[in-house]
């Protein structure tokens, strides 16, 4: 039986700029089940990072957040005070960033970080030897060959891949229930990227933590996640179980992304293009935001379009969803 760990209801995020209010995430609702991985797919400007940061309250000062509710383990965490939320963020919620170096204090050893986190979670009186033994254990689980040695090192003495492993280990050390990973492999080389993905795959099977895995890469999302959300211009355009979504994408945007990914895996002479580019800045409120780029565009797309369920699939924000590709209208 699945248990809902996180439930986000109508999340809206806007940035106050000198000239205008910029809505970057509108009416985003989704849930994550315990022990599952949610893939959050989108390009720059899609609102994927902002959405996840909003859940962890990591938005910059000029951002305003509105949500009907953000329920974590049944409790509405959007109404918590800053202090209460901080406690939650240290223990139950964690984030892994694209650049692991930024998450470590550069003048402290890896061991220091584990001791600090250890004291926070196991209490100040926890025996140091026990903390370090546990740290070694979790580093070994993160495929670090010589944990003893790693604990003595400073962040700058490690390669990007090793540091990302250490960060993942450090996050797992505090045993959070939900881990948000924001493009954790984007700046890594191919081989290391693959290793880190393998590590995530292993962790999700070996722990009961849930993951929100943010990526722009369809094939990575396919490899790692149980269900997928595709965001475009601040809105969810499609969501559903990974397999169904990848096999029969319903939204023209998702169809384009999946097609490009599949074409690059195979051998084609020319790639099928999605024309145009995601608009920057203010998106029209009462119109399909993908309409300017959509091959299936018609008059009816000039109205606000709601997410609606598609049989055996999930939710899709397109009036043509459910019809077979390209023949609708």
């Amino acid at each position, binding site marked *: 039986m699945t248990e809902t760990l996180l439930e986000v209801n109508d999340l809206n995020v806007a940035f106050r700029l000198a000239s205008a209010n910029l809505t970057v995430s509108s009416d985003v609702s989704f849930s994550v089940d315990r022990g599952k991985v949610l893939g959050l797919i989108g*390009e*720059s400007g899609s609102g994927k990072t902002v959405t996840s940061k909003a859940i962890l309250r990591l938005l910059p000062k000029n951002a305003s957040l509105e949500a009907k509710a953000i329920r974590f383990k049944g409790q509405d965490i959007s109404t918590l005070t800053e202090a209460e939320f901080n406690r939650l963020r240290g223990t139950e919620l964690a984030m892994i960033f694209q650049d692991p170096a930024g998450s470590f204090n550069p003048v402290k050893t890896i061991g220091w970080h584990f001791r600090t986190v250890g004291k926070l979670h196991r209490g100040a009186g926890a025996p140091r030897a026990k903390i370090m033994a546990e740290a070694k254990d979790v580093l070994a689980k993160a*495929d670090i*060959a010589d944990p003893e040695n790693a604990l003595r090192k400073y962040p700058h003495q490690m*390669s990007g891949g090793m540091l990302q492993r250490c960060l993942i280990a450090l996050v797992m050390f505090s045993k959070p229930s939900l881990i948000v990973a924001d493009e954790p492999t984007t700046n890594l*080389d*191919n*081989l*290391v*990227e*693959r*290793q880190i993905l*393998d590590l995530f795959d292993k962790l999700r099977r070996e722990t009961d933590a849930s993951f929100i895995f943010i990526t*722009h*890469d*369809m*094939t990575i999302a*396919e*490899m790692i996640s149980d269900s997928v959300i595709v965001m475009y211009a601040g809105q969810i355009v499609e969501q559903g179980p990974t397999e169904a979504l990848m096999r029969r994408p319903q939204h023209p*945007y998702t169809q*384009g*992304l999946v097609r*490009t990914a599949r*074409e*690059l*895996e195979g*051998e*084609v002479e*020319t*790639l*099928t*293009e*999605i*024309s145009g*580019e*995601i608009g*920057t800045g203010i998106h029209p409120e009462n119109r399909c935001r993908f309409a300017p*780029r959509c091959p299936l565009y018609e008059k009816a797309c000039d109205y606000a379009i709601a997410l609606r369920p598609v049989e055996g699939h999930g939710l899709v924000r397109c009036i043509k969803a459910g019809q077979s590709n390209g023949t609708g209208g």
Partner: protein
Amino acid sequence: MSELLEFDDVVVTFAASAGMMSRLRGRTTSFNAVDRVNLSVARGEILGIVGESGSGKTTICKAALGLHSIAGGAVSLDGKPARLSDGTMQMVFQDPLSSLNPRQTIAEAIAIPLRLHGRARRGNMAEAIDTLLKDVGLGAQFRNRFPHELSGGQLQRAAIARALATNPRVLFADEAVSKLDVSVRAQILNLLKRLRDSHDLTIIFVTHDLHVARFLCDRIAIMYFGKLLEFGPTRAVYADPKHPYTQELLGTLDHERKSVASTRDVFNPLTDDRRACRYLNRCPHAMAACSDRHPDFRNTGPGHATACYLYEEATQ
């Protein structure tokens, strides 16, 4: 196929900044970012240089363009030493925003090379600019915009238009799509393929993206820590990679296979033996000869060469 551009034993040396103590201890403070690379590029082909960070794939291109000085060997175009100022070789950079001068409009940026190489004068300048913009799929409305007013794909198109302004024969593209959004990548990749035919270009495409390399490139060169390890037709290399490193690298494409990559340390250019094969530390097939000398190229198929002792050296 006629060879257009040739890299002959090219060496590019970087000075590593080391502390005074290690200098006193006699530790070497420079290393070859590109180490005796021989590579020939045929007219009209798209050659992919594939490698991870530190492989020297970008450095070798910048050396060919005179942005790094060459410490040994030579680069020749059509059998003659490559001249750097005549515009026959151009480059498209990874980050399109920083590759365009923020103070120049798109039209100004394109006008400079046109004027410099005498390809347009005051009278037909506007027309020449519009033609170039049209070639890369941009409308005339972009002429008077500044770089920060364009989106990523539009910027990369503008950067390509500017590169085409000198009427180059060779275009180096350094990770030209890796900073672009996924939905825009296909547009630029198709554009490059189209331009190769319409503008009689030879393209050297530097990338770490194995999918992109397979789609775009006719031939592939695999580099690892300054050394060229394998070179051959894309289809042959992907179907049957010969070098253990290429096998490991291409193995990441197979999502069904588990833990393909070795977790052992990579080559360290400052501390490891530079005479040995660069891949020695990680290689599952390492043998005695590997630590003596970096292997020479062996013929491993039609037009396919691999620098590895696993294969027989050609006798003829």
